[in-house]
C-alpha cells in the first residue's frame, strides 16, 4: 500500500472537520494519520472511551465521524469493541452481513494505561481483530490535566503539582507498549505525529494484522503541556529526537527500530519548551532533572538492545 501523499490525499476523511478539539491539538492529527492507513475497501467502526476526543467529536446531535461509532464508558473501550467485533463475526458467519469491517479504538493514555488496562489486556489475550490506538498526551486532559501512568517523571499536572517539597510527578512512566508486546500480538508499535509517513505505514501494518494490533502514538496537548499551540508537531518531533519517545515496532515478536536517531539531542531541549517542566530548571530541581535524563538514556539503551541496535 502506498504512503505517497498524492495517494493519501485521495482517501476519504473519516474524522470530518468541524469537531471541537482545541485548535492545535495533537489528537485529531493522530486519528487522521492512523486512518490514512485503513484499507479503502472496508467499512469501519470507531470506538472511543471517555476523554477529549470523545467529548469533542460527538456532541449530540452532531457527530464528526464518517463511520459507525460507539462510546460506552471510560475503562472499557476495548471490551466494548470486542463485543462489536464478536457480533460482526457471528453475523458474518450467518450470512447476515456482506461487507468487510475493521474495528478501531482510539483511547487516551488514561483510558489505556490506567483504568482501561484490564479490558485492553483481555482483548489482546482473546485475539479480537481490532486496531487499538492510544493517543498519548501523557495526562487526563479532559478532566483538567491530572497525572496518568503515562506522564513523564518531573511533569507538573494538577495532581502532581510542584511545590516546596515536590518537583512534580515523582514516578517514571509505565512501559505500556512493552506490556502490550508481552501479550504476543501480531503487531505493536510506538509512533509520533511528527513522523506521519511512519505512522501511516505502521497503521497499514496494524490494519493488515490478523488479530489485535496496537499503536501508542504521541499526540501532544498544548493545554496540558503548556506551550504555544503552533508547536505541537515540533514537540512531537523533539520527543523522538531526544529519545524520550523512541519509534519502534514489534512485528510477530521481532523488535525493530523504525527511526534511528543519529545524534540524540539533550532532553532539556524538549523539556524547556513546555511549561509543565519549567520548574525543573531551578537549582532546587537539578537532581530531578538529571534523573529524568538518566531514565531516558537507560530506556533508550534498552530499546536499542531489544531492537538489535547498538548506540553509535
Amino acid at each position, binding site marked *: 500500500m502506498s504512503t505517497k501523499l498524492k495517494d493519501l490525499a485521495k482517501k476519504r476523511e473519516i474524522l470530518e472537520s468541524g469537531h471541537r478539539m482545541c485548535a492545535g491539538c495533537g489528537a485529531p492529527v493522530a486519528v487522521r494519520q492512523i486512518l490514512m492507513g485503513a484499507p479503502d475497501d472496508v467499512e469501519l467502526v470507531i470506538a472511543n472511551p471517555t476523554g477529549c476526543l470523545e467529548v469533542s467529536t460527538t456532541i449530540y446531535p452532531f457527530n464528526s465521524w464518517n463511520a459507525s461509532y*460507539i462510546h*460506552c464508558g471510560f475503562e472499557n473501550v476495548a*471490551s466494548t469493541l*470486542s*463485543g*462489536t467485533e464478536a457480533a460482526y463475526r*457471528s*453475523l458474518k458467519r450467518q450470512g447476515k452481513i456482506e461487507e468487510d469491517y475493521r474495528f478501531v479504538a482510539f483511547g487516551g493514555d488514561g483510558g489505556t494505561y490506567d483504568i482501561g488496562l484490564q479490558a485492553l489486556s483481555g482483548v489482546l489475550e*482473546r485475539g479480537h481483530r481490532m486496531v487499538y490506538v492510544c493517543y498519548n498526551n501523557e495526562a487526563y486532559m479532559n478532566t483538567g490535566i491530572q497525572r496518568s501512568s503515562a506522564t513523564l517523571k518531573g511533569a507538573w499536572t494538577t495532581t502532581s503539582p510542584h511545590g516546596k517539597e515536590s518537583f512534580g510527578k515523582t514516578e517514571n512512566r509505565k512501559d505500556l507498549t512493552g506490556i502490550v508486546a508481552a501479550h504476543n500480538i501480531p503487531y505493536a508499535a510506538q509512533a509520533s505525529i511528527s513522523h506521519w509517513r511512519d505512522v501511516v505505514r505502521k497503521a497499514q501494518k496494524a490494519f493488515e494484522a490478523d488479530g489485535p494490533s496496537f499503536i501508542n502514538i504521541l499526540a501532544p496537548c498544548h493545554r496540558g503541556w503548556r506551550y504555544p499551540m503552533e508547536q505541537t508537531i515540533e514537540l512531537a518531533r523533539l520527543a523522538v529526537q531526544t529519545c524520550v519517545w523512541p519509534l519502534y515496532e514489534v512485528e510477530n515478536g521481532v523488535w525493530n527500530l523504525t527511526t534511528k536517531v543519529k545524534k540524540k539531542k539533550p532532553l532539556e531541549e524538549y523539556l524547556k519548551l513546555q511549561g509543565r517542566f519549567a520548574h525543573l530548571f531551578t537549582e532546587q530541581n537539578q537532581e530531578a532533572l538529571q534523573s529524568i535524563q538518566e531514565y531516558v538514556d537507560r530506556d533508550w539503551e534498552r530499546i536499542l538492545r531489544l531492537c538489535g541496535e547498538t548506540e553509535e
Partner: protein
Amino acid sequence: MALLESKTVALVGNDAVAEAMRQVNPDVVAAYPITPQTDIVQTFSAMAADGLVKTELVNVESEHSAMSACIGAAASGARVMTATCSQGLALMWELLYIASGLRLPIVMPNVNRALSAPINIHCDHGDSMGARDSGWIQLFSENAQEAYDNIIQAVRISEHPDVYLPVMVLLDGFIISHAVDRMDLMEDEKVRNFIGERSEPYTMLDSKNPTCVGPFDGLYGYFFEFKRQQEEAMKNSFQVIQDVGKEFEKISGRSYGLFQTLGMEDAEFVVIAQGSGAGTIRHQVECMRSSGIPVGMIKLRSFRPFPAKQLVELLSGVKAVAVFDRSDTFAGGMGGPVFIELRSSFYEQEKKPLITNYIYGLGGRDLSIALVKQAMQEIHEMASSGRVKQMVNYLGLKE
C-alpha cells in the same frame, strides 16, 4: 397434549437457563463465572463447543467487560445474552445504566446471591435490588420452570419497539439454580418461532446507514428527554409484559402476567413475596385457607416495572398486607424495597390496608414453614386487631 408438544424433564435451575439460552441461540454471549451462576456459563460453553448454537462466545476477563461486550454487540444488531450475580452484577453497575440508556435489548439471567461483606454465596435479593433504578426490567422466577419461561419471554419483551430495554431474569441462588425441578421444555422450533428474528432500526453494522452510539450530551443537550423517554418505555412495558405472557400461554399452557394471585377473591389479609420463597408461603397459605382462614397471596413477578396501580386496586379492600422482602435498604427503619414501594403506592388512597414488612432469608437463611407460620399468625392478629405491632420485622434471626 399434542397442542403443547412439550417434554417433561428434571433439571436444576441453571441447566434450565442454559437450555433456554440454547433455544434462544443468541448471536453473542459474553460472560464471566461466579457462584452460583457458573454452571450456566459452563453448560452453555459446552453447548457452543458441541456446535449446538451459532453463538459467538466471548470469554471475557470480568463482568465489567461482559456487559461492555454485550453493549458493543447489541449496538451492532446482534441478539445478546450474559448471566451473572452478586459481585459480578455489582461490577457491572455503571454499564447497566449505559445498556438501558442506549436502549439495548440485552437479556441477562441473574442468579440472586447476597452481596459482600461478609462474603456469602447464598441467596438473597440484595444484588438485583441494587440495580432497581438502573432502567432494567426485572422479572422474578419462583422455580426452574419460570426461569426458563421468563428468559424466552424476556427476548420478546426487550426487543419490542415500544420497549427496547434490557431485561434481567431473576432466579434464587442455589434454591432454584442448584435444586432439581420437574419442568417442561418446549420444542426448539416453537421457541424459535415465538422469539422470531431480531430486527433493529439502527445498528452499527449497517454500511448504508452508519450509526453513532453513545454520543456526548453537551450542556444544552437532551439528557433529560432521553431519561423521560426511558421511563415512558418502562411504562409501555406493563402492557408488553402482559401481552407477551398471554401469547406465551398459547404455546406453553402456562400463564404469565405482572404477578400471580391466590385466594384474592375473599382474602382479608394478604402476603406478597417474590422468588422461591413464594413456594413456601403458598404452601402455608393453602393450608390456612383449607382450614377456613381468609388469607390470600400475591407473587410479584415484575418488580421493574412496579405494578403499583394494579396492586393498589387488588389490595385496597383487604385489612392487612405483609410484604416479604429478601433484602434490606439500610435506610434506618424504612424496611425492604418491595415494602417501601408498595407502601408509597397507597399514599393517595383513602382506603388502605395495614401494611407490615418481613425481611427474611438474607445470605441464604432458610425460610422454613415454621417461620412462615409464625409470620402468618402475626399478620392474622394484625388484621383482627386493626393495629400494626411492628412495621419492619426480621424473620428468623439468630440474635
